[in-house]
């Protein structure tokens, strides 16, 4: 078979398999809408707090009023002691407890040290950071006003107070990428690539497994299989992966308004290499599994380890070295890093060199593995 014939036969076989055509064509678009749903709101909002106001003064009520104006949290109730609310926090029914101590407004006016205490829960770190950050900001706002009022009473010169009131912050934390710090902007950019890989690996391996069962297709039919046939088959499968990647980085990111388009030409080129690597791996796995359903059974459960091995969610620096080495064998590891750098961070081609080299090495490795696995299976069949 010429490479071109193999490519056409492969594409035709994928589109004619009534069970798998959904995987090849529709699964990625489906997941591109379904998976980001929880993150569509982008930033933590509406998480319930319980207020324990032991002061019951105008100042403490002012704090509660200001808290209720913060989008991150909502006042979910009040209690007369911390102990009452603790169990609800432990059981995850509320996200935090705000305690205004007794004599708070008196101490604040006097200049005696006092503090509004906020309890978050480390069982949910993302929520914890959002709660502590937003309540802390409200309290600091009140503290600044109290300090200014006290200074004025103590007779500080008006000019100095004006200057300190106008002083800018001492520290600014400015994101370079994902400018809104959107939670979806960070998760979906990475998981999108994972979705494409997982769906496509399952589809390709299942189809190759089916060919093997039925002694059919480009690789396991009666015709001889040369390098040209394998290359054409890889290219045929890679076409689906490539289109799915383009759909994600071109349409899905745009339609759902995630950060995108930093280095589009680079991303398209990298998508081509990634598609060939994933297609080769899919063929190798399919020939190894030798079964239509096995790919689903094996690959379904790998998504979570693959995502975390990728090093976006949990930094590589914090993972053991052998895991980072192992992770380099999975296309999503250079894939997610490379695509996030190109799409979301606008990296130049030379800045994704490590990912490009890793992906190219995987293409050669899995291309070789596919060749070997197909040969072994054909020899078994001939015997």
């Amino acid at each position: 078979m010429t490479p071109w014939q193999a490519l056409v036969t492969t594409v035709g076989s994928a589109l004619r398999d009534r069970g798998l055509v959904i995987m090849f064509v529709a699964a990625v678009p489906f997941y591109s809408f379904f998976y980001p749903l929880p993150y569509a709101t982008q930033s933590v909002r509406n998480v319930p707090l319980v207020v324990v106001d032991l002061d019951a003064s105008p100042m403490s009520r002012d704090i509660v009023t200001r808290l209720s104006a913060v989008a991150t949290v909502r006042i979910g109730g009040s209690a007369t002691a911390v102990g009452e609310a603790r169990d609800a926090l432990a059981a995850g029914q509320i996200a935090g407890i705000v305690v205004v101590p007794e004599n708070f407004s008196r101490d604040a006016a006097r200049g005696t040290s006092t503090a509004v205490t906020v309890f978050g829960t480390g069982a949910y770190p993302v929520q914890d950071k959002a709660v502590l950050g937003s309540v802390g900001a409200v309290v600091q706002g009140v503290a600044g006003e109290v300090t200014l009022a006290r200074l004025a009473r103590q007779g500080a010169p008006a000019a100095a107070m004006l200057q300190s009131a106008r002083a800018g912050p001492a520290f600014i934390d400015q994101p370079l990428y994902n400018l809104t710090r959107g939670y979806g902007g960070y998760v979906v950019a990475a998981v999108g690539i994972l979705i494409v890989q997982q769906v496509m690996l399952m589809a390709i391996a299942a189809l190759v497994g089916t060919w093997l069962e039925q002694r059919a297709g480009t690789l396991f039919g009666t015709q001889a299989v040369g390098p040209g046939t394998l290359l054409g088959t890889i290219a045929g499968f890679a076409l689906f992966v490539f289109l799915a990647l383009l759909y994600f980085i071109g349409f899905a990111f745009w339609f759902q308004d995630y950060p995108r388009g930093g280095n589009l030409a680079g991303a398209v080129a990298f998508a081509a290499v990634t598609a060939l690597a994933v297609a080769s791996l899919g063929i190798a796995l399919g020939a190894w599994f030798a079964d239509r359903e096995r790919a689903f059974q094996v690959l379904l459960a790998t998504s979570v380890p693959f995502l975390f091995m990728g090093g976006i969610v949990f930094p590589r620096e914090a993972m053991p070295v052998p895991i980072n080495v192992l992770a380099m064998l999975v296309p999503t590891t250079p894939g997610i890093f490379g695509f996030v750098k190109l799409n979301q961070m606008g990296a130049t081609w030379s800045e994704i060199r490590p990912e490009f080299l890793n992906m190219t090495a995987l293409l050669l490795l899995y291309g070789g593995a596919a060749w070997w696995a197909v040969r072994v299976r054909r020899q078994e069949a001939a015997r």
Partner: protein
Amino acid sequence: MATTGLRAAWARELRYLGGQPWDLALLLWFPVASLMLLLWMFSSGVPTGLPIAVVDQDHSSGSRELIRRLASTRGLAVTAQPPSLEAAQPLVRSGAVYGIVHIPADWDRDRLRNVSPPVVLYDNAQFSLAAGTIGGDVRAAVTSMAVDRLVASEARFGGGFAQAAMRLNGVQADLRTLFNPSLSYEAYFAGMLLPVALHLFCVIAAVSALGREFRDRSVDAWVASAGGSLPRALIGKLAPVVLVYVLLSLGIVVTFAGYRGWAPAGSPLLWMVAIAVLMLVSVAIAIMLVGLTVNLRRALSLTGVYVATGLAFSGFSYPRAAMGTFAQWWAGLLPYTHYLPVQQGQWLGGASASAWAQGMGPLLLFLVVPLLIGLPLLNRAVAQPARWGAR
């Protein structure tokens, strides 16, 4: 008679597994390997030494002091000091550093005059966790210097440094994290991912055990082995899955509470009951999925949609209260959403037994409802040989 049917179905299943290394691996070795991998992945607990670049355009004793404070922070490692922001940005884009700390020219001098421009951290929010860690650490270092300086300036009004510090700290925000206060990502990530991974593996194993009888058109032989009773055939077939996964799930609790040496804040026993119920729920869901599809491949595809995406909707990282209406509603239909607070309550929070019981209610519904849907469908499919063998 009843027990002989059960035993025959159980023996038939074990015989099959003994002859099929792939199915045995899917049932047992893959999950064990995955759990160990996940546990190892987060064994460092808290990320340390995240690389940042510092652009010091001030070159003063103050800016050098700030760099020293940054470098001495456990979470940070100052790995580069490029001369300008232009030279620093490629370091972020290439992934060499997670952020740039910029100390502007004349920062120290202007600081003494109280008109200083801010120190800016340019971080990479595309790496949310790393950016958060770095942001907190850099802020702490900068603030610690600012506070030292403020106290010295306030002390001019008399009363010494101690009183000056007290005056400045008139009203404070006392921010505390209860339960897992160090934000150990081992306790958090591994604590959540191990059960959800096992839940998924268990559904896959049970779907595979049931679904392959339909795929291979061997339903007759299977039901006949149990004396023609579908309930007995089901129990005998799924008992190995239940046994393996309940033991593995208890192994998770034992690993955390025993091997890793942590003390669950609540009751390890209640946690064990909850995680064992999650495994039973997984088997019930598998019965429902196979009953709905009567097709191994389709049942596995549905497992992908319904179970494998469950983590994202469960609120394990992004809180459920913050999600949109549809996502919140869908999350409510997933068992892991209901299991999660029960586990976190016993494992990290130390929630009461009554809170546990309240949380277990919905989880038990996921045991009953899928069986109510799945069993009649399965019963019908067993009687319709024409529907067997679909791939």
